[in-house]
């Protein structure tokens, strides 16, 4: 299903969040630690102690390994799902002549509406921004594999919110969750399995908030005015909030988005970003060249998305309502008897099942073994 896109994101090591926040972990010389392993005399131990850099550490994350795409790969996946579902609905004989199916752009607009609901509700519950960001990421990942015709984004939203509260350590009992949101509990729980499977059980999502804080600390080293910098930082945080509604989280690394947001915020607050860039990335000719060739274009691209992507803004209510009605019609058509009978069905877990209860089955087997031996 998911293939990591080839190296769309170049630079990372200098900008990974932990580099700037943690001093203890990153200042230890790699060779020193390697030295430790040499005393163990065995090859295995040596291998075990190979020092890994902060960049490699991020590259081990499931986000980097499995949830990184190029824009065209994302478009392809979404178009393919959309085509598939439309084709299967058309197999039924009850599709109105001039029916207008929901296209990918419309689906994304509708998802944008529910993304903003997540932010609203979590804000009301006074949860930190990263909890919203995680729930939104779950929903976005879910719809790379599943279609809105089968699973309405509102239902998915609720389950993603419930799950994100748990994975981010803000568990709320299901009865409280469902009563506050006035939505029955069982459907929320029922979807949890499928959401987890669609996420491939990758629950950790890295967001730009933490690296942004790291950069904020780091920028203080060359700041003329901490008050002004504080304003820049706050502005950058709102830009990161906006970025959650785009595809940037699939395309770039959190630290890159954070830095681009700070760069933009500097512009808006007329604060000198170049001074920091010179200090951090352009200390000599070779780093300077690397910055200009790799990081700078990435920052530019992120900036462009944050200014031009229509999903940065709330959609038109009437248009969204229309999309939602057509989506519901699609679901209805897809589930009509004439359509269902023509669609091949794959039952979950098949029917070859012999371990309904593993314990019982194994106990039985153990008993037979014993019987034989007595």
């Amino acid at each position, binding site marked *: 299903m998911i293939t990591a896109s080839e190296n769309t994101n170049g630079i990372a090591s200098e900008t990974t969040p932990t580099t700037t926040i943690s001093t203890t972990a990153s200042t230890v010389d790699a060779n020193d630690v390697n030295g430790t392993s040499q005393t163990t005399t065995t090859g295995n131990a040596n291998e075990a102690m190979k020092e890994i850099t902060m960049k490699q550490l991020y590259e081990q994350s499931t986000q980097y390994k499995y949830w990184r795409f190029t824009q065209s790969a994302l478009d392809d996946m979404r178009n393919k799902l959309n085509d598939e579902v439309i084709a299967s609905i058309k197999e039924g004989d009850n599709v109105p002549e001039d029916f207008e199916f929901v296209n990918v752009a419309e689906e994304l607009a509708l998802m944008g509406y529910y993304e903003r609901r997540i932010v609203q509700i979590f804000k009301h519950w006074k949860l930190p921004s990263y909890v919203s960001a995680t729930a939104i990421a779950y929903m976005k990942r879910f719809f790379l594999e599943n279609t809105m015709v089968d699973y309405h984004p509102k239902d998915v939203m609720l389950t993603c919110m419930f799950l994100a509260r748990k994975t981010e350590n803000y568990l709320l*009992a299901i009865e409280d969750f469902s009563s506050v949101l006035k939505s029955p509990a069982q459907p929320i729980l029922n979807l949890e399995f499928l959401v987890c499977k669609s996420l491939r059980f990758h629950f950790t999502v890295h967001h730009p908030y933490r690296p942004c804080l790291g950069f904020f600390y780091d920028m203080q080293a060359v700041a003329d005015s901490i008050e002004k910098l504080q304003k820049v930082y706050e502005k950058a945080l709102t830009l990161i909030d906006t970025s959650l509604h785009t595809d940037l989280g699939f395309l770039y690394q959190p630290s890159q988005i954070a830095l681009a947001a700070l760069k933009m915020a500097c512009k808006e607050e007329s604060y000198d970003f170049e001074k920091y860039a010179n200090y951090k990335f352009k200390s000599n000719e070779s780093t300077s060249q690397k910055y200009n060739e790799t990081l700078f274009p990435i920052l530019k691209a992120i900036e462009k998305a944050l200014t031009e992507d229509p999903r940065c803004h709330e959609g038109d209510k009437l248009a969204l309502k229309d999309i939602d009605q057509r989506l519901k019609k699609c679901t209805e058509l897809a589930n009509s008897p004439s359509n269902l009978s023509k669609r091949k069905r794959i039952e979950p877990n098949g029917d070859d099942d012999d371990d309904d209860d*593993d314990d019982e089955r194994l106990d039985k087997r153990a008993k037979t073994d014993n019987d034989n031996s007595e």
Partner: protein
Amino acid sequence: MASLRNHAEQHNNQVYKDYKKDRKVGEGAYAVVYLGTQLSTKKVVAIKKIKIGQFKDGLDMSAIREVKTLQELRHPNVVELMEVYFHKTNLNLVLEFLESDLEMIIKDKSIVFMPGDVKHWMLMTLRGLDHCHRNWILHRDMKPNNLLLGKNGQLKIADFGLARDFGDRNRPSTTQVVTRWYRAPELLFGAKDYGYGIDIWAIGCIFAELLLRNPYLPGDSDMQQLDTIFKALGTPTEADWPGVSSLVHYVQFRHYPKTPLRLLFTAAGADTLELLESMLIYDPNRRISAREALLHPYFFNKPRPTPLENLPKHVRETPEAAKLKRKADTLGA
């Protein structure tokens, strides 16, 4: 709704079909562990089955914590989570299988530990833990039976059911973590903003246990645990541990003097005791980190860590031997 379009479901089924459970090897409060086989590779695995059905809030927090952290951690000294799949209403974690654990070895009094053995076990434990901490993950349940040992002698940290991320301020954490004997004093005093130090304290206790072959600080209750700690290491004052008296559950204890470690650990070298002592420093901010511990002279001085293949192994009783023993017992009775 099952349909042709359900890619996630299909993937899950593929994974499910690749594993077979062979026999039950353990049962915990919320999970059953099986020995199993990956059919495509014939590899022996451990399958931890978590019954979701019994949890009213859906997927339970321990399962989430374990899956969330292990998915991100790949290290020779951390147990590998190979796959995760749902079957019926159960969540199954496929983990690499390891024969025994450090607790079994410690309890097996037929085995004599050499200083190099202890050194290598400590080295592997600290490497695994350092990797967790660098990923901002606290284990929160370090104890000998969560340190698994493979056939080749390799040690791996397991059981991440209590693990969580740390490093963000304003995120209070529960103090009801870590098995009591290995619980750091700041947890016992109710500190909610603890960090890597709680895992290091636990490793200090394990280190001591490896040297003594007995639990170092076995308390019967939380209060008694503190008393046991203070009896062994002296009652801390504000000077040793700034801020201790303002912790939520702080109570004044009777004053025990500090006894030098060498009185108890008579056979241990000076570098050993120095490292042990730095893991058991009261002030969590001054307690040694995993990274610093790895750079401690103890690991560079002689004796060298015993090569993996020469480390003591716990020989598991074969079913045949057990049967004979049972028979002998019955005859005896």
